[in-house]
């Protein structure tokens, strides 16, 4: 059998991403607040269809879901990332309160470039979203592996130093979790 027919066959029979399926059916059960068999069956069918549509084949969403692989190490790093994230979120808010309630808002905003080591789309999405919620920074755009970040109070324009200050806390765990 040639590689081509093999991949077509695989597309036809492929189930899609199990991660997406579990996520969907869990969401369904939580929203319905019930584990009644009828609801479970309807939920399973819906989840199957959506999983098949969005994570089988060769569309970009399928590529994206394929890049997410569950493993104990991945879950551990994801939880560690969540912990770091919550600490950073609280710190960002305290800084923000300082600016907001200051007698005079004394900031020097600016846009800086930050390079990232992350290569997977999911990892970059998580990084960009985390950056938006941490001390005075907001991702404006992305070109390749460069993020353009609006920084509320620019402390340095040195690329290495900005990377350490803005994306440093998250990158380690996200790299281990998503690549």
């Amino acid at each position: 059998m040639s590689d081509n027919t093999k991949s077509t066959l695989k597309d036809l029979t492929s189930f899609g991403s199990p991660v997406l399926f579990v996520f969907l059916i869990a969401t369904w059960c939580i929203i319905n607040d019930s584990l009644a068999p009828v609801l479970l069956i309807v939920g399973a069918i819906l989840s199957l269809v959506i999983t098949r549509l969005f994570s089988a084949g060769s569309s970009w969403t399928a590529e994206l879901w394929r890049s997410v692989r569950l493993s104990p190490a991945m879950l551990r790093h994801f939880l560690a990332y969540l912990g770091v994230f919550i600490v950073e979120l609280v710190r960002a808010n305290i800084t923000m309160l300082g600016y907001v309630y200051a007698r005079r808002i004394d900031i020097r905003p600016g846009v800086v470039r930050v390079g990232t080591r992350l290569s997977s789309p999911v990892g970059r999405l998580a990084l960009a979203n985390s950056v938006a919620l941490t001390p005075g920074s907001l991702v404006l755009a992305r070109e390749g592996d460069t993020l353009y970040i609006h920084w509320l109070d620019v402390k340095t324009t040195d690329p290495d130093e900005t990377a350490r200050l803005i994306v440093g806390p998250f990158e380690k765990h996200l790299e281990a979790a998503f690549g």
Partner: protein
Amino acid sequence: MAETALREILGSFVVLAGAFFLFSAGLGVLRMPDAFTRIQAGTKATTLGNLLVMLGVGILHPDWALKLLLVAGFVLITNPVSSHALARAGHFIGIPMAPSTGADALRDDENAKAEKAKAEKAGAENGADRAGDGA
């Protein structure tokens, strides 16, 4: 009985703390100097404010915990995405930044790219032979 009362007091205080952060976000939007810094104030404080309100409601009604977790996750994912989209669009159409703004690396790079495209276009128009040399 005492436990219920304690839970209600604790839950109410957490909701109140959330409300305080939401108020600060509003104040930040009023006080910040330009669109981008306002988006920043709006994003961060509303996210933590929302999470605290969810947590407080979760303490008041523990049986809603899973649904509240779902809502919190939704807020955590969508809030930064919307602020990013607003900021990107704002920068794209050239909304001015506060006078105190220092470097704008994105504007610099976009200008450089536009200059390069213009130069290439000009080069293609009046110097087709030069392009031939390059190849």
